[in-house]
C-alpha cells in the first residue's frame, strides 16, 4: 500500500466534488423541505456555461488566468440565475403542494435542462473537451504523485465550502435564511422578505453546483451532457447519509462516499467495475443503521 497518499488525494478530490453537490441538496432541504433533483443538471449547465465562456474569452484573446476567472464567474452566475429562477417560478408557487409533486417537478426540470444541452449545444451528445486552464504537472512525495491542479482544486473546493458555511452562520442573509428555515411564518412577521430570501437561498445552493461543475471540468478536462445525473444521485445519497439538512453531514457524506469508492479500487483492483455497487450497498447498510443520517438534523437548528 505504498500509494496510500495517492489514493487519499484521489478520494479527497472526488469527495470535494460530492460534498459540494451534497451541500446544495442540504441547503434546499433545510430551508424549504424540497428535494431538488434538478441540482445535478444545474451543475452540468454551469460547466457548459464555463466552457462557452472559455471559448469566448479565448476568442477575445484573454490570457489563461483571465479565461479561468471569466469561466468561473460565468458558471457561477449562470447557475445562480437558473437556481433562483427555478425557485421563483416553480418551487414558490408549488410550496404548498405535496412533496411528491415538488420532487417530480424538479426531476422534470432537470430532464429538460439535460435534454436542452444535448439538443441545442453544438455536438451536444458528444463529450466536450474542456481546456486545461490550471498549471499542469505536479511533484512526487515518495511513490505518490501530487497533481498541481488537483491540489489547487481541493483547496478551492474546501474554501468554497468554508465560504458557504460562513455565509449561512455569520452573515445577515444567513441569519434570515436560518430564520425562514426555522419558522417561516414568524420570520415573515418579523419582517424578513420571504419572497427574496428563498430565491437567494436557491441561488446560493446552485452556485455551489456551478463551482462543483467547474472543478469537475478542470480536473477531468472533459464534460458531457449527462455528467450531472450520477453526481446528483451520489450527492443526494451523501446528503442523506450525513443527515439531510445538516451542512457538515453533507460534507462528511461526500468524503465518505468517495472514500468507499477509492477503497474498493485500492483493495480489489479487479473489482473496480463494481465500486459504485459496493459503495451504494454500504450506504444502504449505513442508512438502515442510522435512518436520520450520521449527523441527524437537530430540531432546533436547521441549515
Amino acid at each position, binding site marked *: 500500500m505504498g*500509494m496510500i497518499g495517492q*489514493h487519499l488525494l484521489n478520494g479527497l478530490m472526488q469527495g470535494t466534488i460530492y460534498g459540494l453537490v451534497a451541500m446544495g441538496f442540504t441547503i434546499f432541504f433545510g430551508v424549504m423541505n424540497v428535494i431538488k433533483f434538478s441540482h445535478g443538471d444545474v451543475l452540468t449547465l454551469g460547466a457548459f456555461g464555463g466552457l462557452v465562456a472559455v471559448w469566448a474569452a479565448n476568442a477575445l484573446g484573454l490570457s489563461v488566468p483571465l479565461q479561468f476567472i471569466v469561466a468561473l464567474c460565468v458558471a457561477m452566475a449562470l447557475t445562480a440565475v437558473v437556481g433562483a429562477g427555478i425557485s421563483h417560478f416553480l418551487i414558490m408557487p408549488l410550496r404548498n403542494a405535496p412533496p411528491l409533486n415538488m420532487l417530480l417537478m424538479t426531476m422534470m426540470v432537470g430532464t429538460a435542462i439535460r435534454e436542452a444541452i444535448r439538443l441545442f449545444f453544438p455536438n451536444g451528445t*458528444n463529450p466536450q473537451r474542456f481546456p486545461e486552464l490550471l498549471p499542469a504537472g505536479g511533484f512526487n512525495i515518495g*511513490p505518490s504523485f501530487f497533481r498541481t491542479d488537483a491540489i489547487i482544486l481541493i483547496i478551492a473546493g474546501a474554501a468554497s465550502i468554508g465560504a458557504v458555511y460562513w455565509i449561512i452562520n455569520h452573515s445577515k442573509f444567513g441569519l434570515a435564511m436560518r430564520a425562514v428555515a426555522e419558522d417561516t411564518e414568524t420570520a415573515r412577521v418579523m419582517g424578513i422578505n420571504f419572497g427574496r430570501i428563498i430565491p437567494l437561498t436557491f441561488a446560493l445552493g446552485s452556485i455551489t453546483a456551478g463551482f462543483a461543475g467547474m472543478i469537475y471540468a478542470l480536473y477531468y478536462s472533459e464534460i458531457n451532457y449527462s455528467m450531472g445525473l450520477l453526481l446528483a444521485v451520489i450527492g443526494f445519497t451523501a446528503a442523506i447519509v450525513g443527515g439531510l439538512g445538516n451542512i457538515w453531514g453533507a460534507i462528511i457524506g461526500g468524503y465518505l462516499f468517495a472514500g468507499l469508492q477509492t477503497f474498493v479500487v485500492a483493495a480489489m*483492483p*479487479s473489482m473496480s467495475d463494481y*465500486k459504485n455497487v459496493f459503495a451504494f450497498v454500504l450506504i444502504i447498510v449505513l442508512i438502515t443503521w442510522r435512518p436520520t443520517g450520521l449527523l441527524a438534523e437537530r430540531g432546533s437548528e436547521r441549515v
Partner: protein
Amino acid sequence: MGTISKRGLAALAVASVLPLAFGSFSAAFAKDKVKIAFVGPLTGAISPHGIGGRNSAELAVKLMNAEPNTKYEYELVVLDDECKPNVGVQVVTKIASDRSIIAAIPHYCSATAIATVDIFNRFKMPMVVWAAVLPEITYAKKYPEVHRVSGILIGQNRIGAQFMKARGYKKFVSFADSTDYGKSMNKYFTQFTLENGNEILGSFSVPPDQQDLSAELTKIKELNPEVIYFGGLTPLGARLRTQMAKFGINAQLEGNSGIMGDAFVNAAGPELAEGTLTFFDSPPLSKMPGGKMFADAYKAAGYSEPPEAYGPFAYVATRLVMETIEKVGPDRAKVTTDLGDVKDRPSIVGPVTFDDHGQNITPLTTSYVVQDGKWVVWEESEYVSGKRKLKNLP
C-alpha cells in the same frame, strides 16, 4: 354523387389517366428504387467513426447510382444506433420490419451488434456488418442472414502479443471496458500474452463512460507495468491516455482496432498519442487495391469528416449488398443465399471471402504506431529505423 360537377368529373378522369401515362413513361427511363439501410453511431462519443462509415456507405451508393448499366436505383436509409444496445435493437427492429428495405449494413460497436443479430435472423433480413469485431457476432450462432467484412478481434490480439514479445516487453497491465467487447479483448489479450510467456500484473475493467480513472491509475502506477494494454473504444482510450499523463505514468500504450482512426489522435492530442501502438485488420488505404480510388472519390464528394479506419469497410459492405441485389433482385431471401456464396470477390480492401458463418476470412492484420499525429505502418515508421523509440523498451 349527384353533386359532382362536370368539371369535377373531368378532373377525376385526368387524374386517373395521368399516372398511367407517366408510369409507362418513367418505366422506360427511370429504374426501380431499392432501399438499403446503414446503421452506425452518428451521435455520441463514437460518432466520428459512425459518420465516417455513413459517408463511405453513401459514397458507395452515389457511385453505384452513377453507373449507367445498373438495374436499380439505390436509396440509403441512415439510422443512428448511438453505440447503445437498446437503441440498436429499436432501430434494427424498425428497418427489419419495413419490408421495403431489402438489406442492412449495420454497426460499429460490438456491444450493439451482438444485441441485434437475433433480430436480423428473426425478420430474415440479410446484413453485412461493416466494423464491429467481436467474434461472437458471426460465430456464436449460425445465422444465414449475418455476414461481416471486418475482421474479428482474435487475430489482432494474437499478432499484438507476438509483436510485444518481439520488442522484449515482459510486464503488462490490461485495461478494458466492461462491455462484451472489452471483455472479449481482455480475454484474447490475456490468452496470447500468457502463451508468449509474458506476465500480466493486473486487469482492470471500467464502464466505457467512466470519467474518473484516478483510482485505477493509482493502482497501475503502483504495479509499474512496462505496457498498458487497452481494450476499448476511442473515448475511453483517449481519456486513459490523457489521465495517464496527468498521473505521470510513463508506460507504453498498446491499443487495438477500437482506437484506430484519426479520432483518437484528435481526442488525445498528437503529443500524447505519439508512440501509441495498435493492431488493426487492414493495411492502410494507400496499400489497399482500391485505396486510391476510394480516397480520391471520398475527397471529390466533399465530405468534411475523415472516413476513419472503417470507412473503406463500410464502402465494401454497401457495395457488396448492392452488387448482390443487382444479381438476384431486391428479395431478402435471395440476397441472403447469394451473400453466403461470396468467394474471392474483389473489393477495394482486397478479395472478400465469407466462411460458413458469413465471416470474411481474408483481413490482413497490420501493426501501426502514431508518429507526428498520424497512424503509420510500423515497418515504415521511424521507430523501426531507431530514430524514435517506444517507451520502456528493455
